[in-house]
C-alpha cells in the first residue's frame, strides 16, 4: 500500500543510497505500530515507547534518539565515530587484538579516526542520511580513556553540525573526572557499562584496571571500578544528563547479580537499563570465548529483562553495534562511509533532517492513533493470553521486508494489553540469491522459535511451507503496514480462530 521509495526533500546524495527509504508525507493509511500502548502508566515494556510513558520534557529529549527510545529506533539513525582506541580496563569479553570488518559487535572498527576526520565523516554521513540524529563515541576503547580526543571531536561536531545530538559510552572509571566537561560540551546522553556492584563478581569479569598510574587487579580493581562508576553516575544524573546503563549478562557470573545492579543504578538516577547478552566465541580470542563461557539464550535474556523492569525502563532493542557503525540500529552502512569514500567537501544541510523529523513526528502520531484503534478491538479479550510475533522490517515502523532478505526479526509480545517490542533475533545467514536457501532455514527457524507467526512483506512458497511445518504462520496480509497495529490485528485473528477451536493452541 505504501511506496517506500520516495526520497526526502533536499537529499542530494539519493542516487547512491541503497537502504534508507523515506515514506512520503501523508502516504501511509495503515494501522498503528510501535511498542507498548499504555498511556500514563509510567512504566513500559521497552525503552520509552511513546510520549504517554514519560514527562513531556523528558520525552522531548529522547524521542529522536534511536538508543534511548524504542519507537525512535524504527525511524532514526546513529553513527559511531571511532576516535577512542585506548582503554583503561581489561574486560574478559573483549580482545583488543581482534578486528574484523565483517563483524558487528562492540569494540570492532575498520579504521580509527582523528577528531578532524570524525567531524568530516559526520557531515558526509549527515548529507546522505537525513535520518541521522545522533553521533556517539563508543570506542573501540573507552571514550573517556581518550578524553582529549573525545572532547575535541564533540567540539568540532558541535561547530559543524549543531543540530546533531552527541553521546558516548564509557566504562565509568574516569567518569567523575569529566562531569564538568560533559556538561560544557552539551552532551545530553551518556552510557555507562556497569556489570557488577560486588567486587567479588567484578573480579571474575575484569582481570585488571589502569588507574592513577598503576595497574590494579582482583577484587581491589573491581572495587575501585565500581566506586568510580557509581560516583560518576550519581554526579552525571545530578547534573541533569540522561544516563543509560549497559550491563553484559554473563550466565553463572552476573546474571542473578544484575537484579542488584539494576537497583543500584536506579537509586543513582539512571534513566534506562540495557541488559545485553554476552557475545562469546573462541574465534574472537576473548578470555570468555577461549574458556567456553556461554552467553544467555534469548529466553534467559528476556526473563532477566522482565525481572528488572519496573521503575526504570529496560532497553530491549540494543543491537550491540560496532564502534564505527552507521545507519539504523540493526543495519550497518559503515563500509559505505570509509574515509576513502567520503566526499571531499561535504556540505552541512540541516534542512533535510528537519524535514525528516517533521515527517516522522506526523508518522508516529499516525501509527499511535492506528494502534490505539486496533487496541480497542481486542481490549479485555482472553486475559493472560500472550503470543509472540516476529516481524521483518527495514525501518519506518512498517512490515516492509521480504522474509528472505531479513538479517534479523523483531519480536513483539502481543496481548489484549498491546503489542510490545521485546527483542530482536539475528539470523546467521540471510538469503541473497533466492528464497529456497536450505542452509539458512534451520537458523531462521531457531530464531523464530516460540513465535506464532512471522509478518513479512513477502515470502516464497518453500519457506512458507517449512515455517508452517514448524508451527509458524507466515503472514503477508499486512505487507507495508504499521507493525504494532498489524500485530494486534493478527492477534485478533488468532483469537477468533482460538474461539472457533481452529487454532492448534498457543505457540
Amino acid at each position, binding site marked *: 500500500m505504501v511506496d517506500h521509495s520516495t526520497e526526502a526533500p533536499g537529499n542530494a546524495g539519493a542516487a547512491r543510497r541503497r537502504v534508507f527509504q523515506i515514506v512520503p508525507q501523508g502516504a501511509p493509511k495503515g494501522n498503528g505500530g510501535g511498542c507498548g500502548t499504555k498511556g500514563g502508566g509510567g512504566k513500559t515494556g521497552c525503552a520509552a515507547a511513546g510520549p504517554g510513558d514519560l514527562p513531556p520534557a523528558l520525552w522531548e529529549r529522547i524521542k529522536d534518539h534511536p538508543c534511548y527510545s524504542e519507537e525512535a529506533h524504527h525511524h532514526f539513525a546513529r553513527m559511531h565515530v571511532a576516535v577512542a582506541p*585506548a*582503554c*583503561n580496563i*581489561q574486560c574478559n569479553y573483549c580482545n583488543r587484538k581482534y578486528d574484523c570488518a565483517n563483524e558487528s559487535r562492540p569494540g570492532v572498527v575498520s579504521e580509527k579516526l582523528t577528531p578532524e576526520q570524525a567531524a568530516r565523516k559526520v557531515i558526509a554521513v549527515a548529507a546522505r542520511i537525513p535520518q541521522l540524529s545522533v553521533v556517539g563515541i563508543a570506542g573501540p576503547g573507552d571514550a573517556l580513556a*581518550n578524553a*582529549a580526543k573525545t572532547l575535541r571531536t564533540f567540539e568540532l561536531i558541535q561547530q559543524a553540525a549543531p543540530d546533531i545530538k552527541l553521546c558516548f559510552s564509557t566504562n565509568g572509571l574516569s567518569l567523575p573526572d569529566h562531569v564538568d566537561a560533559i556538561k560544557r560540551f552539551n552532551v545530553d546522553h551518556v552510557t555507562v557499562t556497569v556489570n557488577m556492584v560486588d567486587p567479588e563478581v567484578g573480579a571474575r569479569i575484569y582481570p585488571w584496571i*589502569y588507574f592513577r*598510574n*598503576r*595497574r590494579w587487579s582482583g577484587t581491589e580493581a573491581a572495587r575501585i571500578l565500581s566506586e568510580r562508576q557509581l560516583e560518576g553516575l550519581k554526579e552525571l544524573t545530578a547534573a541533569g544528563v540522561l544516563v543509560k546503563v549497559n550491563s553484559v549478562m554473563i550466565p553463572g557470573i552476573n546474571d542473578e547479580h544484575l537484579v542488584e545492579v539494576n537497583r543500584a543504578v536506579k537509586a543513582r538516577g539512571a534513566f534506562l537499563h540495557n541488559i545485553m547478552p554476552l557475545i562469546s566465541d573462541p574465534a574472537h580470542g576473548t578470555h570468555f570465548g577461549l574458556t567456553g563461557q556461554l552467553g544467555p539464550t534469548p529466553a534467559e535474556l528476556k526473563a532477566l529483562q522482565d525481572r528488572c523492569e519496573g521503575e526504570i525502563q529496560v532497553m530491549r532493542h540494543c543491537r550491540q553495534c560496532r564502534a564505527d557503525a552507521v545507519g539504523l540500529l540493526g543495519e550497518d552502512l559503515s563500509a559505505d562511509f570509509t574515509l576513502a569514500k567520503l566526499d571531499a567537501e561535504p556540505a552541512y544541510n540541516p534542512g533535510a533532517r528537519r524535514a525528516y523529523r517533521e515527517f516522522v513526528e506526523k508518522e508516529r502520531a499516525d501509527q499511535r492513533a492506528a494502534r490505539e484503534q486496533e487496541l480497542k478491538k481486542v481490549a479485555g479479550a482472553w486475559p493472560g493470553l500472550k503470543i509472540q510475533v516476529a516481524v521483518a522490517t527495514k525501518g519506518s515502523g512498517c512490515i516492509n521486508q521480504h522474509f528472505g532478505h531479513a538479517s534479523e526479526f523483531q519480536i513483539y509480545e502481543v496481548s489484549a494489553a498491546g503489542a510490545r517490542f521485546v527483542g530482536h533475533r539475528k539470523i546467521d545467514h540471510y538469503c541473497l540469491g533466492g528464497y529456497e536457501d536450505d542452509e539458512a532455514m534451520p537458523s531462521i527457524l531457531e530464531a523464530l522459535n516460540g513465535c506464532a507467526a512471522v509478518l513479512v512483506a513477502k515470502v516464497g512458497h518453500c519457506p512458507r511451507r517449512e515455517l508452517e511445518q514448524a508451527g509458524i504462520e507466515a503472514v503477508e496480509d499486512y505487507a507495508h503496514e504499521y507493525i504494532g497495529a498489524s500485530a494486534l490485528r493478527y492477534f485478533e485473528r488468532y483469537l477468533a480462530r482460538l474461539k472457533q477451536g481452529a487454532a492448534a493452541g498457543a505457540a
Partner: protein
Amino acid sequence: MAYKIIASQCSGCSACEPECPNNAIREKDGVFLIKPEKCTECVGYFDDPQCVAVCPVENTCVIDKSVPRYAAA
C-alpha cells in the same frame, strides 16, 4: 635498558602514548614505538613502567636488552 614494543603484538590502541612521562612513544605505520634514548623505564616517575601497566596485550611492552639499563647509563 629501555622498554620496547613488539610491533607484531601492538594493537595500535594508543593507550601508552599519553601515559609515557618522557614522551618517548610515537606512532608509526599503525603501531607504536618507544625511542630507547628517551625511555627511563619510568624510574623517578612511577613505581611501574606506564606502557606495561596500560597495554592491553600481555608481553608486548618488554625490556629491550640491546640497550643499556637506564639507571646505569
